[in-house]
């Protein structure tokens, strides 16, 4: 039993240190995709610390959610930056002064709390069932809070899709777009062709304005 406790202690320190190192590497790497996945590595390490602290369900769900979310984030960053595949080197840091001030203030604040706060020392009862207790909490006393948050997030997602969709509230997304001109010297755009809307080709011209 002491062996298991020792392994758990060592593992907590390894994962805790690993999460910090991975988070630091987010800013040391030169690619958006690598940055996203170093962040994922940091989250996974935090999830493992949570698992070791007996919050197994929450720790595993963190890994499950973050694996998908970091992938989506990487895909969107590459799309918005128009950087072919995010493999071109680019700096991951900007606004140096603000970042330094924010970093120092955050570190000082957290260090102060860490030194002053009195942390509880309550070992988890091995017989307790943290997942079941979490379920009781989510669907018991705190149900109103979590349901409100959940429904709000769902409404936000539906709203975002409604606005961003091809037939969203701002009208047809392809309106006014035109396929790229066949003649390379001709200007692109709706006036370049006698009939600008070719069914199925509109998507190619969306960025030409």
């Amino acid at each position, binding site marked *: 039993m002491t062996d298991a406790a020792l392994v758990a202690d060592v593992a907590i320190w390894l994962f805790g240190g690993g999460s910090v190192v991975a988070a630091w590497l987010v800013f040391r790497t030169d690619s958006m995709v*690598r940055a996203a996945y170093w962040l994922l590595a940091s989250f996974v390490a935090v999830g493992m610390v949570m698992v070791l602290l007996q919050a197994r369900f929450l720790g595993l*769900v963190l890994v499950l959610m973050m694996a998908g979310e970091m992938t989506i984030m990487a895909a969107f960053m590459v799309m918005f930056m128009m950087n072919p595949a995010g493999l071109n080197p680019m700096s991951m840091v900007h606004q140096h002064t603000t970042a330094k001030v924010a970093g120092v203030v955050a570190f000082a604040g957290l260090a102060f709390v860490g030194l002053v706060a009195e942390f509880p020392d309550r070992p988890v009862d091995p017989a307790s069932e943290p997942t079941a207790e979490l379920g009781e909490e989510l669907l018991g006393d705190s149900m109103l809070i979590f349901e409100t948050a959940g429904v709000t997030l769902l409404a936000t997602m539906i709203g975002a899709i409604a606005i961003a969709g091809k037939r969203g509230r701002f009208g047809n997304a392809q309106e006014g777009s035109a396929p790229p001109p066949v003649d390379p010297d001709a200007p692109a755009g709706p006036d370049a062709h006698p009939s600008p809307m070719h069914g199925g080709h509109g998507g190619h011209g969306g960025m030409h304005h």
Partner: protein
Amino acid sequence: MNWSAPLPGVVLVGTVLVAGAYVASVLDAGAARLVAGRPLRVGELVAGPWREAALLARIRRSTTERPDAQTWALAPALLAAMAGVAVATVPLAPGVAVADVDDGIVLFGAAMAVVMVGAFLHGWSSNSVFPLVGGYRFVALALSYEMPLALVLIAAALPAQSLSVGAIVESQQGLWNVVRQPLGLPLFLVAGMGLAFWGPLGMSDGADLAGGTGVEASGPDRLAWALARHFVLVAVAVMGAAVFLGGWQGPGLPGALWMAIKTLVLLAVVVGVGHRVARIRLERFVVVAWAVLIPLALVDVFASGALAL
């Protein structure tokens, strides 16, 4: 024997994955011959995977211009490791489980989410066009099958009143989930085919992309990627056998044998479908997944919940 000790655990999971991958690959070659109406030459089929592996191991590796070499090497390792994690949560016989933890199917879900990271990175890291397109295809595919997968697993956990795979197996005493929740297994297998980018859902490594994420991999790299993909398929079959086909339970034969037979049946089904059903266009699958599969999975959850109450 204490199967959750490090050495026996690794040996057990490794044996299941390697044996399963070998059998799946023999089945695949056999199904290809059956479909083509060619004679089944058992000797050739049995030797086939070994010959292919030996050939790939001897072919020279190739590289691309400025790849992310570490990530490229990490991708198959990530898939293989996550397949191992998934198999570890499943009891393979009464009392024989490496890590039948009380949040087993959540652990399975987390491992399968990391498979998406591995497949995307395999496409991204070679710094080449077709693999990258394949990687993006896998992400779109994964985001579409992930919800049905999570929902059918939740439905299977409801009658067991537990997230542990062992408890889910026990809960099927007398009535397997494949009968109790008829929507569960088909939806699970669709998601499983997506996880291993197999057959109709093999668009990330499809021939229309000249091989997709695997285009630039050659020799041992190609072997590692093929093995990792087979490992994921085996993990899906093992989990499907435990969660929907009653796991090790069955009359007469020992539990481990029942588990092997059920896993084999699921492997045969997936491999057979892979040879009988054409590859689907990704856009069409995304629409079907969100408009048909997720509502069906929700019906599965609600019906299973009502039955369990």
